[in-house]
């Protein structure tokens, strides 16, 4: 295998959890809800995903466990912010704090266990095509699922009526309510979708990326996913580019560490985090005319009955 090919393959794998989590958050935010608890939902998804796979011996069951866990945690968020009109920023932080504790509790007895990770696809003929074969047809199924998902989200947002209604809720909840749309219910569904994606993104880590679970293994990926949504200006197409760019930064610093570049490994490990800060600054700076964020993002809505 060529080094370039190997790097691209590992970039795909490293990008997938970012893309999955960011896809969910993009939908949530387009509906006008800022859920900062992505990191918390991911880590719970990771613990439950691993637990499910370890107990059942099935990667698919594990992935489903991750999804359900992500949805349940996001349900708490939805109840708090939509049902009780609590500040979304504070609730998102609370969700992360709770998620880290819960995952530790759930995952404690699985630390040190190993599972067989999700198999890489192998399609006779296609996977063997030189250079592109393994990249296009030889990764694990989650990689392609995440791409299908973001395409589906694009289609949903811009080509369906339900997507139009969702965007309308994110633009102006007062108007959407006045026209009779159930703003809170639509937002709840968006939050649940975000939770499912974050849960799956978390589960991807112990099910496909590494064969084991360790506490805190999401290592800030949830926060990076949040930054990616900003980077993408809330548009699905740019989200894909962003996710792969970040995946590339992560992998390149790993390879650089492996190659024994004369820079301390901690500095290399800090690269993805620093890159996030720099990207946020450059991007915000470039958008001087104003924000492209959904107009109602993060605001509380209490319908008048």
């Amino acid at each position, binding site marked *: 295998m060529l080094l370039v090919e190997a790097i691209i393959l590992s970039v795909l794998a490293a990008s997938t959890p970012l893309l999955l989590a960011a896809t969910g958050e993009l939908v949530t935010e387009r509906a006008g809800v800022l859920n*900062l608890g992505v990191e918390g939902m991911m880590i719970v998804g990771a613990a439950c995903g691993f637990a499910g796979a370890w107990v059942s011996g099935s990667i698919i069951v594990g992935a489903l466990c991750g999804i359900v866990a992500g949805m349940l945690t996001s349900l*708490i968020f939805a109840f*708090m912010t939509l*049902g*009780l*009109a*609590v*500040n979304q*920023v*504070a*609730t998102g*932080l*609370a*969700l992360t*704090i*709770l*998620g*880290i*504790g*819960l995952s*530790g*509790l759930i995952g*404690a007895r699985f630390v040190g266990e190993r599972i067989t990770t999700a198999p890489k696809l192998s399609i006779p003929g296609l996977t063997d095509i030189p250079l592109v074969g393994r990249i296009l047809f030889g990764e694990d199924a989650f990689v392609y699922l995440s791409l299908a998902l973001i395409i589906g989200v694009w289609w949903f947002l811009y080509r369906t009526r339900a997507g139009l209604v969702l965007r309308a809720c994110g633009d102006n909840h007062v108007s959407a309510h006045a026209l009779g749309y159930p703003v809170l219910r639509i937002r709840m569904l968006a939050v649940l979708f975000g939770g499912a994606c974050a849960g799956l993104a978390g589960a991807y880590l112990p099910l496909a990326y590494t064969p084991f679970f360790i*506490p805190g293994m999401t*290592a*800030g990926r949830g*926060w*990076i996913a*949040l*930054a990616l949504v*900003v980077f993408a200006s809330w548009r699905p197409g740019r989200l894909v580019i962003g996710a792969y760019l970040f995946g590339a930064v992560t992998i390149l610093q790993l390879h650089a560490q492996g190659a024994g570049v004369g820079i*301390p490994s*901690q*500095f290399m*490990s*800090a690269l993805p*985090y*620093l890159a*996030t*800060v720099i990207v*946020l*600054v450059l*991007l*915000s*700076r470039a*958008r001087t005319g104003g*924000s492209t964020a959904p107009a109602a993002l993060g605001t509380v809505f*209490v319908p008048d*009955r």
Partner: protein
Amino acid sequence: MQLVLEKRAERSRTIALVSPLIAIALTLITMSVLFAILGKNPITALGVYFIAPLTDGYSLQEIAVKATPLVMIAIGLSLCYLANAWNIGAEGQFLIGAVAGSWIAVTTQGTEAGHWVLPAMLVAGAVAGALYALIPALCRVRFGASEILTSLMLVYVADLLLDYLVRGPWRDPAGFNFPTTAEFDPVATVPVLIEGGRLHLGSIIALIVVAGAFVLLDRTIKGFEIRVVGVAPRAARFGGFNANQLVLLTFAVSGALAGLAGIIEVAGPIGHLQPGISPGYGFTAIIVAFLGRLNPIGILIAGLFLALTFIGGEQAQITMKIPLDVTKVFQGILLFYVLACDSLILYRFKLVFAARQVQSAAR
């Protein structure tokens, strides 16, 4: 059946006072259920968590020691949150403060340096924390980048920097390859208040910080500016208050307090710099700030309460084999209940059955 919120004409002051207590009560009930699920007797477990530490002098001192950084950080965070500036990177500012102060301790180690060392370390810690916090604040003010994400990202960076230093240049040559600096000299150590005890000067500093914050918020125009800019940014601009300046100010103050807490922790109870100097003080302080309703006195009480859960959690692990993560779960649940109960200050909750019958479910 549907939950409906009805806006109150005025904020309920009664509920503002009672809501943290309701939240704690609800948390204790939830925790009992969790203990039962874990197969532990809830009454015994709650006793170990919340009563036992209050019964001996050593634990009481230890609670004050743990509460010291929590209160100092939370006071700073409360200023930020009041001004609607979301500093969630206090953990990083705490670490950077510890690193900066330790730099003086490490470089003066074994020299004739006099009693200026500790004050210099405290100043260095505070200044470094403030500067580190100013990075996300400047990114927001100058470029409009979300301070939430940038401040959080810098936590990881600070953590890695500390890790590098204690494994690399600052490692104690006589430390059997453990990632730690040498024990600080006595002039670089925060003095204890009671000979042989754990309670140290930092706790006094924390009390002074609480008093200062109280005066600032309650009596001065600057405190008023901070409060207005958070609840009504447009009105604040109309009042002539500069929101950007306040973001910088509150971030700097909160970074300084976190940095100061960091160096006090290292130069006090720990005595040397090593990874893992914080069991998540910077994040737990977020809970302390909200549980204390962003009020300095409330934060003091909340800080002591959460410190109690740390001590109780350690004892529960030793005596009852309850995992330490339970403490984190407890803290997370507590924050949820606190936020939910705060909603009662602004709204009445009503459960609506069918379309027409309205019943009052809660007040």
